[in-house]
């Protein structure tokens, strides 16, 4: 164990700053530092993933903008969208973003209980968002507005549905993370995981703001 603490891991050595050659290894290395470096590598990769997701959503938005007028004689955005529900969804999702932020703050204070509580609140808010969204979709389908009604509705359901799918996956992930936190407590690994999911959650929030503005606001205006 003593020996394990003495040396610097390869990844850490590999990660020395560009241009600081000869950053000699083995002097200030210990496991936690190593893990920190290792975890920061993963966070960086997650940023890149978010960027690809950004392009994915951008493409879906582009399709929506091209197709949103093609109602094929079916219902239009004005006829279909019910703003109170959408505003409630928006409010809930924005709040959940805030609570996920509180979770991260609690984590930095090493407050495991607070962290888990705030994550649980975020999960609940996210789940109610999904509930409202599914409810909204079901209502539309009952009114005969389905994905196969018109190009407008295809692109609407796909864009909003993809966002909803992202939120749902995030929920599964967050629930899994709560169990991991209970088992392992706050470690560099779980800290990275919490940071990453909160990043993901904020990202979905930003996407939703675009959905709200471009799809719903511009739809009813």
């Amino acid at each position, binding site marked *: 164990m003593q020996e394990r603490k003495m040396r610097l891991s390869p990844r850490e050595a590999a990660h020395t700053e560009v241009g600081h050659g000869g950053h000699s290894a083995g002097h200030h290395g210990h496991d936690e530092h190593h893990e920190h470096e290792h975890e920061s590598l993963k966070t960086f990769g997650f940023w890149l993933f978010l960027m690809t997701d950004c392009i994915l959503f951008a493409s879906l938005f582009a399709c929506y903008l091209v197709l949103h007028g093609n109602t094929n004689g079916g219902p239009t955005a004005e006829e279909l969208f019910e703003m109170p529900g959408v505003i409630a969804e928006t409010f809930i999702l924005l709040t959940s973003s805030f609570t996920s932020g509180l979770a991260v703050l609690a984590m930095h204070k090493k407050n495991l209980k607070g962290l888990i509580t705030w994550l649980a609140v975020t999960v609940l808010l996210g789940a109610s968002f999904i509930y409202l969204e599914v409810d909204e979709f079901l209502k539309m389908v009952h009114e005969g507005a389905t994905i196969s009604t018109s190009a407008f509705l*295809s692109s609407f359901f796909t864009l909003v549905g993809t966002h909803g799918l992202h939120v749902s996956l995030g929920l599964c992930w967050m629930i899994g993370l709560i169990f991991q936190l209970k088992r392992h407590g706050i470690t560099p690994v779980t800290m990275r995981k919490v940071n990453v999911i909160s990043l993901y959650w904020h990202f979905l929030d930003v996407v939703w703001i675009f959905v709200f503005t471009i799809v719903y606001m511009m739809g009813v205006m």
Partner: protein
Amino acid sequence: MLDNIKEFASEFFVTGDPLIYGADVSIGLAMIAIITVLTYFKKWGWLWREWLTTVDHKRVGIMYIIASILMLFRGGVDALLMRTQIALPDIQFLEAEHYNQIFTTHGVIMILFMAMPLMFGLFNIVVPLQIGARDVAYPFLNSLSFWMFFFGAMLFNMSFVIGGSPDAGWLSYAPLSELSHSPGVGQDFYIWGIQISGIGSLATGINFIVTILKMRAPGMKLMQMPMFSWSVLSSCVTIIFAFPILTVTLALLFLDRYLGAHFFTLDGGGNPMMYVNLIWMWGHPEVYIVVLPAFGIFSEVVATFSKKKLFGYKSMVFAMMIISVLSFFTWLHHFFTMGSGADVNAFFAITTMLIAIPTGVKIFNWLFTMFRGRITFTTPMLWTLAFIPCFVIGGMTGVLLSVAPADFQFHNSYFLIAHFHQVLIGGVAFGYFAGLSYWWPKMFGFKLNEKLGKWAFWLWNIGFYVCFMPQYFLGLDGMTRRVSEYSWDMGWGPLNLVSTIGGFLMGIGFLFQVWQIAHSIKFMERDTTGDPWNGRTLEWSIPSPAPLYNFATLPQVKDQDDWWEDKQRKQQGLPSLKTPQPIEPIHMPKNSAIPFIKSLCWFVAGFGFVFDWLFFAIPGMIGVLICMLVRSFSYDTDYYIPVDEVKRTEAALRGTN
């Protein structure tokens, strides 16, 4: 009951063509042979532990390369079947339906299942070694990428014997690829095969960007990085911007076909032209994704075999980055004839021509790397030398195609076919062949036979010109692409015959390559130096094949071409700039079965979606989710190699010293 089964089987399996029965038999025999050999030699455990579950970048790379060579064979056979059908007028060898399937699978396989994995294979083997790292940033994800590619490719290839192949062209333009015009399952195989492997490619893109940016050896500045690693970086940056668009496009096409959505349909307000735009917004960058690493390989090879530093390093880097960026602003040149108006066409004509500038600069830099050098004509160098004129001519015809009003005459003709084969074979294939023979000793510890390699080289090279030069003329003479028949009075017979002969010459070239590999495995001497070419970069500083952990102690980098400079100092009797480092326990990732199982689940799910069998699709998707959770919950994912073991391995690999 029996009748039901018979009816199902006749729908499920592709029937009625002797070619396909032949393929069925050979696939069956090959599988039996593999299973027998593995069982007889009791190799199942070895296969599972050492290969299927490995997260070692070198082994993943080798698996990529094996898969891509198999795919090159399949794609090549497709090509030869096509060339046979149109060798002469009025040949009744393949029906239109089969011909359409074959050119579709040829295109998809060559680009997505041959070029991409060969490229990823070289990324995997070379990049960590070149930048002095012990693995890629995310070894687990890397293995997952490979298996996603592999099962995606398997799913796509399965369509040959089960259900029927896709036949709407390699980019499957809607509405031809919609349910209304392609009711068979072939198109669904296309969607899911590409989708699954595409997700893998996206992950590889992220993986290598992080590897290159964050895991370089201590002291290696970005501007000292070997050119191949730079080319990988630019290619991966292009991947992460382009591949999400492909994911979306295929997903939308799937929704159209599966749920009756109206994105690209003729009816319901769909917009087929949007498909054409989207697919080329991925498709055009895609060709730069595969060609940029080839540029990197040429840069390495030309410097090594001219025994001279790469000329204009900064220019080279800059040029590649410009190409990466510009590649996103040219997609419309694939459909100038859509009539988007003169403003739009002029804009995209100019952006396309602009790419010629950085590409031209790279050619000059390669030439001036050789200038005042000492050129040895090894196989990798021959491929590189053949590349230059080939790519220059192909580039010129590319510029001709970019001239929008002239493109109205070239578009959809064999002129276009000749052009892109010239840049893809002359650029990409020659590049990867150069890379394969250059890094082969690093992968396996022995060189490839030079004599057979040269035979293969000449056959490919001559075959290439014989095959594709006539096609430029055929295009100018009005022969359009994808036609499976023409009559004697068109006058296209002689040139097509010549072209077919060229195609077969390349086929023989491929056989020579296979022979070369088999022969070399059996007869070539082991390379004990680890540096058989007198190389310049870090991968040549370690034994071949590289040990699991690559570098016993991480190299300290002072220069561009660090290993070369090191050798020069030693030769001149100067003291090394490096202080010896003590060997320490090495932190390594553990092997994992999850990537294999998860990709298998994707395969099952994809197969279920293809046939609309929810009893396959739902368990498959649940399997994927479970794999994700299992991975998320496992914390014991790595281990340490103790110092003693490292010392023992090093002593064994480096001989007595």
